[in-house]
């Protein structure tokens, strides 16, 4: 097998590749700025320089030349090489800053050079704390600068587009953003303008940087030159807690990190997932974090006669539903599942009402044809259309549903987290004949019309699975606490630095912003008083049960989803399997 010697240690490689990527794959450290595994390699930051050479091969003898110590004679390249663009070669010898003083000096000098015109505004820069320039300067850079002259000034705080702001002075011209728009989003909206020490990224004259993927340039910017207009100055990175999750704003289900502080989601960034979104995600998915924080339904709401909705206790909400269930026969109940809710919640809904004898289970896919782009934005606006379908909910379009309501005149309509009135032509009149219960996360037209509103958790608050448009099941991890969950006690939740060491007596930690809501499945357990309540203790357990009942979900478990970053399901058309 071909071999390469890095810092006098032998490594074997199988596939052709570049030295930098090979080192990163093997957990070795080397500083770099412009290199990105998903983009082309311009080698323009010059930071990943190494000393590289090849053994001298004696063609006549057909052997490598050996020196007096019995070692191979190495002929080094005349100058330092950029590891990012250097191809792996059999027998190659690479010396990094660990073993070579010249490389060490070159890296420090290059950093000094990059920093010549870089403003020292880290204390007010959003990138501080997750800034490769800051980190690498700390690790490899010189202690101070010898540059005594006035720094070059460039435009600051330019609104490049609706979501991205440019600080040209901070830019080190790595061209990652330009390459992103050229190679990934293919809008070609950015370029580097001007030249020499005055250059910085810009759009064409009069154009705005309205790329639907524009915020990815903020992620890959190795300095604070491109910042998010939305997240700017909101939080420091070290104050936030990072939880792996998925994007529920469309059908693709990009893997994400949810960044929380004080039980508010501050931002959403993409998480690497080769099978779904690589390193990227659409802007819309990031801005959808607002729905986790704002306009949330907290505490159940009950409509008394025809009056306004009033807040009520959980106990009262449960009793009211049970009372209604006693009055109304199972045949008069219409249950509408939701592609916006998780597999577990839909399953719990279905299980509870099947036990009551209900047979009418419907759902309305939320698909806007033409709104997708065939990449990470799907026509499907909901994260779980395939999941609901696989659970045996009958796919219904709005006309059929309205016809159904008009003809069968159900006495009770159950709607799981889906703004049917807001997004379809369904009107309050259609629902007026029935007693309506809505499980909702945010206040919307549908919840305002309901007789009983049960506040349920969002993807930011529960561990639950969603099946994306390609049939891949992935799960969320609770990122923010509800009134009934506790980060320290709930082992499903991740802990950040402040969660570990902060207390609510610190003035930088607050216990506020916890919404009074529970997962829909928890509500159904509480309804059963008579001992035939399902024995679910967690959504993890529900998924185990689903995996046992539905062939589509066979062998699906949270552990596997975590390990494999989601599981590809084999979607069958005929998934009308009745739960036992």
């Amino acid at each position, binding site marked *: 097998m071909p071999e390469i010697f890095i810092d006098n240690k032998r490594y074997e490689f199988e596939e052709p590749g570049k030295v930098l990527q090979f080192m990163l794959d093997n957990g070795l450290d080397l500083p770099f700025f412009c290199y990105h595994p998903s983009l082309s390699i311009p080698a323009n930051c010059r930071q990943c320089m190494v000393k590289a050479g090849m053994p001298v091969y004696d063609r006549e003898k057909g052997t490598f030349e050996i020196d007096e110590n019995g070692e191979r004679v190495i002929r080094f390249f005349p100058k330092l090489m950029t590891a990012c663009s250097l191809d792996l070669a059999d027998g190659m010898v690479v010396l990094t800053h660990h073993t070579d003083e010249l490389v060490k000096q070159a890296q420090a000098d290059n950093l000094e050079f990059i920093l010549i015109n870089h403003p020292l505004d880290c204390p007010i820069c959003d990138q501080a704390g997750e800034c490769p320039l800051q980190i690498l300067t700390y690790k490899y850079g010189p202690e101070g600068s010898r540059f005594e002259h006035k720094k070059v000034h460039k435009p600051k705080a330019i609104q490049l587009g609706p979501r991205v702001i440019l600080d040209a002075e901070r830019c080190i011209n790595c061209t990652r953003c330009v390459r992103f*728009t050229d190679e990934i989003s293919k809008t*070609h909206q950015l*370029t580097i*303008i*001007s*030249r020499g020490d005055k250059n910085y990224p*810009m759009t*064409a*004259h009069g*154009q705005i940087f309205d790329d639907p993927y524009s915020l990815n340039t903020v992620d890959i910017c190795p300095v604070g030159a491109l910042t998010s207009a939305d997240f700017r100055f909101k939080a420091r990175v070290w104050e936030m807690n990072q939880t792996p999750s998925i994007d529920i704003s469309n059908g693709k289900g990009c893997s994400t990190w949810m960044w929380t502080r004080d039980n508010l989601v501050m931002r959403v960034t993409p998480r690497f997932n080769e099978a779904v979104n690589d390193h990227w995600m659409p802007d819309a998915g990031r801005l959808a974090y607002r729905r986790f924080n704002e306009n949330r339904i907290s505490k159940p709401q009950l409509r008394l006669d025809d009056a306004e909705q009033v807040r009520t206790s959980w106990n009262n909400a449960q009793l009211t539903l049970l009372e209604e269930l006693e009055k109304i026969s199972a045949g008069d109940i219409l249950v509408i599942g939701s592609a916006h809710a998780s597999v577990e919640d839909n399953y719990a809904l279905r299980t509870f009402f099947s036990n009551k004898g209900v047979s009418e289970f419907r759902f309305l896919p939320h698909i806007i044809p033409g709104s997708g782009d065939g990449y990470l934005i799907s026509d499907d606006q909901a994260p779980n259309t395939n999941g609901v379908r696989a659970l045996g909910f009958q796919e219904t379009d709005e006309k059929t549903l309205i016809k159904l309501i008009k003809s069968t005149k159900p006495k009770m309509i159950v709607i799981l987290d889906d703004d049917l009135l807001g997004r379809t032509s369904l009107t309050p009149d259609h629902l007026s004949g029935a007693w309506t219960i809505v499980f909702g996360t945010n206040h919307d037209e549908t919840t305002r019309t309901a007789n009983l509103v049960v506040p349920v958790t969002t993807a930011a608050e529960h561990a639950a699975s969603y099946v994306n448009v390609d049939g891949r099941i992935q799960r969320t991890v609770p990122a923010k606490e509800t009134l009934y969950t506790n980060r320290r006690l709930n082992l499903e939740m991740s802990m950040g630095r402040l969660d570990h060491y902060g207390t609510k007596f610190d003035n930088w930690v607050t216990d506020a912003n916890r919404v009074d809501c529970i997962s829909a499945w928890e509500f159904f357990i509480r309804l059963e008083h008579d001992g035939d309540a399902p024995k679910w203790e967690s959504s993890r357990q529900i998924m185990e049960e689903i995996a046992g009942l539905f062939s589509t979900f066979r062998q699906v478990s949270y552990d596997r989803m975590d390990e494999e970053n989601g599981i590809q399901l084999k979607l069958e058309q005929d998934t009308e399997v009745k739960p036992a």
Partner: protein
Amino acid sequence: MADTYTFDAKDLAEIKKITDKYPEKQAAVLPVLWYAQDKFGHTDSSVQQLVAGTLGVPEAHIRGVVSFYTQYYENPMGRNVLDVCTCLSCQVCGGYDMLHYIEEKLGIKAGETTPDGEFSLQSVECLGACGYAPMLQVTNDKFVNHLTREKVDKLIDDLRAGKQPEFESNPMPQHEKGS
């Protein structure tokens, strides 16, 4: 704005000739920008847009190219652009004197254009003609060397009359015969 500048059929035929030389459209950006600058006198945002549209190359890329090379004029310029070298050798030999003389003569400062649109004046860095300092370049083309006030007067009169300076061969001493 965009439709003030267009390429007619003849221009498009010329551009076709240029693009045919290269395997990719992007490679034709420089010569096509030259062509456009010859025709319109500058390559401002609307010309950039026109070139981008004609070649099918991203507009941002064109802007990057135009702003990289100082020889492309991103803003409309006078009919004649005088690039007076004020870099080291010319400076020592009186480059600034020449610049200030022209400034006075035309009544404009370096970086400005005369109101009649005849002349633009720029102070530029080394043009690689240190041996003939002080010197200036006329509209990205001919060099006028060993400047004196009289030479400048004549040049400006000639340019006003529509006469471009001749190419001037200045052999360096070491290349002259017998040395």
